[in-house]
């Protein structure tokens, strides 16, 4: 699952249409939309709202696996043309000075830049950074929910020295995001791929669920079961020990059996 965090409805609309996301009824303090692959939340303006929405979305996510996270929105920049997109290579909270550096494993034709999150719209655009109002709140929270390779922010330039922020309106923002959908989708596909890789590493070994259903294990024993089962499967090349285990009376005997089988395999491979 990929989680999208946007600040305002006009940034969300092109994404909702493009990915065919449906509103979740009774979604609480934030509007949340989803399909099978994406879940989008409209956070409201500002880093606190972005952090809160990110945490809220994480809280609503069932299951143990990691999700990919992408903050999509608009930003100001001194020189970059209005309508161009950029991927954040550094997200800086102007208030605290804290930085996040999303590892750049996603390939994109868009440039990358530092995104500085400010409390009020920045109209002087100092330096070469882009300025937004949410990315730092998003990054602070999302990097607690997933490994940082899966946390990114993509910004579309809405204003610069030549086209000041006063000219920006809802319709324009919607068009700006819409025009970047191809780039955004390309990034999201890669993010989905990385997320799938990450989740594959965390997938429990085959047959674990069946064993946990069949016998009682304490929490500690269930960790040991997972470890032993994985090791047995790697050594034996067999994914399903269940037929052998059927006649065992309890969880402890299952653990003993697996340990014995592992010892047997190791003894056989180290004559």
């Amino acid at each position, binding site marked *: 699952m990929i989680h999208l965090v946007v600040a305002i409805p006009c940034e969300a609309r092109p994404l909702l249409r493009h990915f065919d996301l449906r509103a979740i009824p009774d979604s609480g303090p934030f509007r949340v939309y989803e399909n099978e692959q994406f879940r989008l939340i409209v956070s409201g303006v500002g880093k606190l709202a972005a952090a809160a929405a990110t945490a809220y979305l994480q809280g609503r996510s069932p299951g143990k696996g990691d999700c990919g996270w992408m903050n999509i929105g608009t930003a100001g920049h001194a020189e970059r043309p209005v309508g161009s997109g950029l991927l954040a290579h550094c997200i800086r909270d102007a208030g605290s000075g804290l930085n996040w*550096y999303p*590892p750049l494993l996603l390939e994109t034709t868009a440039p990358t830049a530092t995104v500085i999150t400010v409390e009020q719209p920045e109209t002087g655009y100092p330096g070469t950074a882009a300025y937004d109002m949410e990315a730092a709140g998003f990054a602070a929270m999302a990097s607690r929910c997933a490994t940082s390779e899966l946390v990114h922010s993509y910004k579309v330039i809405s204003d610069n020295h030549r086209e000041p922020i006063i000219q920006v309106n809802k319709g324009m923002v919607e068009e700006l995001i819409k025009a970047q959908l191809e780039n955004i989708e390309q990034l999201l596909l890669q993010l989905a791929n990385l997320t799938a890789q990450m989740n594959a*590493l965390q997938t429990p070994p085959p047959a674990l669920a069946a064993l946990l259903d069949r016998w009682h294990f304490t929490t500690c024993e269930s960790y040991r079961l997972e470890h032993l089962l*994985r090791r047995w499967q790697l050594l034996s090349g067999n994914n399903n020990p269940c037929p052998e285990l059927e006649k065992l009376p309890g969880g402890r005997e299952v653990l003993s059996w697996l340990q014995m089988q592992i010892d047997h395999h190791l003894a056989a*491979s180290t004559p």
Partner: protein
Amino acid sequence: MISTLYIEEAVREHPRSREICARFPHARQILCAHYGELFNRKAQHFRLQKQGPALILARKQQRFLLPAPPQYGIGGSHNYYFSHMLNCLYDCRYCFLQGMYRSANYVLFVNYEDFQQAIHAQARDLADADPYFYSGYDCDSLALDPVTRFCGEFLPLFKKLPHCRIELRTKSTQIRALLHMEPLPNCIVAFSLTPETIRRKLEHGVPSVARRLDAMEKLYRRGWQLGLRFDPLIYQQGFEHDYQALFAMIFARIPATTLHSVSLGGFRMPEKFFRTLGRLYPDEAFLAGPFVAQKGMVAYRQELETRMMDFCSAQLLSYIPHDKFFPCSNAST
């Protein structure tokens, strides 16, 4: 190869940084205050990052030189290591770096002059001894040499310190700089080797044994002293045949007289690192192998390690004299 360069602001104008940036004109350059802001922070995943590691140019602030772990020497009584770089170009499944660091990015400390000063000071303090300096502990000494220019920068220092020895430890074939230099009698170019079947399974990105043998042969013919490092020894069924064949292949081309030293040691790793490897590579059969944890370290079962060490020691000692042989002392040989 490198698509992203992170550069500490303090070394932005360092000549070495500028040279490296010029070498990667298409890489994006990202400034940071300190490499610790992005290297080894929480919520990083070594295996994902290994798909596209970035190069971080940084300044090492302190602890340029550290005592080498005891009993890992090759004949000297004063052993030190230094790490101008963290992390390795290669992706060996048994490597402790994967367990030690959360990040797979390469960190290059460009302030070589500070390392050199520390080495010089230590060498001066040990003017009557024969200190050894090891450079390949947290990285491969040569794998990135065309970028780091490590050999060209550090070996001239050791030319001025003839009572000291430097070991370059590598799995690479990046020897061009060495071939263009006058051989240093106090430099040991040490190659880490495992049998080819193990390399294919576990040492991703590492040149074949045959290619490394070519490099070794060129070096010894040029007059460089070589070292052989069979550390870690890796068990697989039929290891006797595999290691015997490896030794035979090496000594058919490299005269034992040109070797400074040969060392070997069984696989061992801090238990905490080993657990991290298990999480990073749950599908890796090697990690399910005949290991035991004892006193915080994971290693092969004692009788198996003894068997491997005894076998390989006997084989090696049929090629080399005892005074060039340095088994890691936690083994039984």
